[in-house]
């Protein structure tokens, strides 16, 4: 329950839980989840006596429930799960359920610091969001694709503003979808809305919309761009300028548009997953210069390396580092950093993690069923049964390794320089 600056960054290893084996009173336990600071490990457990609970560092919650699912640690280290009692669902935070109950709850979300916990709710066939136990006042005929502002004060949801009779083509194409922010839907409705996204301050929302079956564009706070496109992907706000950048398809090829103006000429067979540095100066995206050949383009310039697939693109805060993964049909994974391929081919690799100052990159990888880390391209000298994503210390000098190995949950803090 503390920000990363206050975590234990003393170099060394600590055993958080000696055994993640099933305790005697449990019929089974599910897969362990480790807290962001690595100090706690939680599992959902089916009790021999009936019902479910969670064990956090081996200690059961005070409460048990009829059902428990979606175990997630909040960024501040609280353990949450969605729980059911007497047929009604809610969210339990460290074992304490919200007072409000709903017909269904899913999609737990957190603010950046973790102080706000929110989830999608369905109550009496109506849909909305509930944050810290406070449900929206207005609910909707349907709701999906929730997103939360960084401070957790606002939530947005794609909502259906009117119910549809079965197979009513006219009503659907007239547009019954919109985006609701804190229960208030935009005035405008669309044929479809997808991937709402807040700006850094949480003041504006942009979403992809389809105004007819054929015209795709971006709506910001309900107002659409003047241009429409053959197709598009998720918008992102430039953190520095507040402008909205989205991949668009025009004349049969993909590029990037910003506030309705093309900023990357549409020359790619595909372009998506754009990321923008904090200063707003560098934009990178996964692109396909030719069919079936993917790479990363930084400021519209594609890297020379090509792979059948490229995923998990990340950019450093300052934009000085760009990293992604390449693979061939979900095998032969490689780590790509700044246009170069790190040595080594892996059965699987996970989203690269760039240190806060951009100096270092760490990536979790797996080979022959054993997981390990690559730090700046060097393999970490130890392998584990399972790893969580690595975390850099706020000053970027230390690396937190959260691992499960030989039945124990361990927490290792390593010097990046020596890792």
């Amino acid at each position, binding site marked *: 329950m503390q920000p990363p600056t206050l975590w234990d960054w003393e170099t060394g290893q600590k055993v958080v839980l000696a055994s993640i084996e099933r305790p005697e009173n449990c*019929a*089974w336990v*599910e*897969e362990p989840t480790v807290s962001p600071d690595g100090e706690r490990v939680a599992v959902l457990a*089916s009790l021999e006596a009936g019902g479910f609970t969670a064990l956090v560092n081996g200690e059961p919650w005070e409460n048990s429930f009829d*059902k428990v*699912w*979606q175990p997630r640690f909040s960024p501040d280290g609280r353990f949450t799960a969605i729980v059911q009692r007497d047929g009604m669902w809610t969210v339990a935070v460290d074992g304490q359920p919200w007072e409000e109950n709903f*017909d*269904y709850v*899913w*999609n737990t979300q957190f603010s950046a610091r973790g102080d706000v916990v929110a989830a*999608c709710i*369905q109550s009496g066939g109506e*849909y909305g969001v509930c944050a810290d136990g406070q449900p929206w006042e207005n609910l909707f005929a*349907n*709701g*999906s694709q929730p997103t939360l502002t960084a401070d957790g004060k606002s939530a947005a949801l794609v909502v*259906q503003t009117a119910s549809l009779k*079965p*197979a009513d*083509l*006219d009503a*659907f*194409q007239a547009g019954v*979808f919109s985006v609701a922010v804190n229960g208030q839907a935009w005035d405008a409705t669309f*044929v*479809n809305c*997808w991937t709402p996204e807040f700006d850094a301050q949480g003041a504006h929302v942009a979403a992809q919309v*389809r105004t007819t*079956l*054929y015209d*795709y564009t971006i709506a910001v706070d309900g107002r659409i761009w003047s241009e429409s496109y*053959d*197709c598009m992907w998720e918008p992102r706000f430039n953190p520095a300028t507040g402008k909205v950048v989205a991949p668009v*398809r025009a004349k*049969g090829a993909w590029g990037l548009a910003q506030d309705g103006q093309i900023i990357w000429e549409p020359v790619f067979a595909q372009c*998506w997953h754009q990321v923008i540095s904090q200063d707003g100066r560098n934009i990178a995206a996964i692109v396909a210069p030719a069919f079936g050949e993917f790479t990363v383009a930084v400021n519209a310039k594609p890297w020379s390396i090509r792979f059948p697939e490229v995923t998990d693109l990340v950019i450093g805060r300052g934009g000085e580092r760009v990293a992604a993964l390449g693979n061939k049909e979900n095998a032969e994974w490689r780590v790509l950093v700044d246009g170069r391929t790190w040595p080594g081919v892996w059965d*699987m690799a996970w989203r690269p993690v760039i240190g806060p100052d951009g100096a270092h990159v760490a990536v979790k990888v*797996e080979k022959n069923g054993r997981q390990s880390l690559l730090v700046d391209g060097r393999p970490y000298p130890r392998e584990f049964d*399972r790893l969580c994503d690595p975390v850099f210390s706020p000053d970027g000098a230390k690396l937190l390794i959260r691992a499960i190995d030989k039945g124990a949950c361990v927490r290792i803090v390593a010097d990046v320089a020596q890792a």
Partner: protein
Amino acid sequence: MGIQDRLIEDVGLRRGVSRLTPEKIETVVRSVMASEAGARLKAYSETCMRCGMCAKGCHFALSHPDDPSYTPAAKVAQTMGVLLKTGGRVDPGTFYGIAQLAYTECNLCKRCVHYCPIGIDTGFIMSMVRRICHKLGVTPQYIQDTAHSHSTTFNQMWVKDDEWIDTLQWQEDEARDEFPGLRIPLDKEGAEIYYSVIAPEPKFRTQLIYQAAAIFNAAGVDWTMPSQPGWDNSDMCMFTGDFEMMGRLKRRHFESA
């Protein structure tokens, strides 16, 4: 005999055709031809020798032995053939028949490929016809409704986000009576098998999910199912000709995996 002799009433086709003019049809046909139709369509339309061998490969033709207008080559002639010959300038009434044929008398099974010495892909040609139909807004009502569902829920049966998870948990519960300790693991990272279904399973045939879970449980394999939309591996937009939505669905499905 031909498609115009067997028109049926469909709300979707009628609605779409009522808004067409020959000029509009021509414009859209020309734009699709210019932007999307390539060498494959050209080669197919040119080299078909009209030998008629494909007739024996098509269940529509086999079930109408007395009506030669159901053979694959005849169906191409009545749809894409007409559009190519006229440059797309056909009257809306004719287009009704073209759309009806493309959607209801060829289900793109590509069985005729096994009968064509040259390797002409009638299914592909029909998809191009459907693409033009979609662009003109002339699609049968129920398939269009599934396309609408896909665009909204990423599954074809309007299964809402919560209904999906609820259904899985219900089936998990049911199955536990028979197989204590059975699980349908949701979003389990690193699982070996990602099990995806089509929307009619949660909607109408939930026992199929139960049965799959029972098999996975008995086999002791490491599997998972997604809790998020994208779990439906079907794609009716591909069948309506809405290739933009098709791409969106495919991406969602793969990224969910």
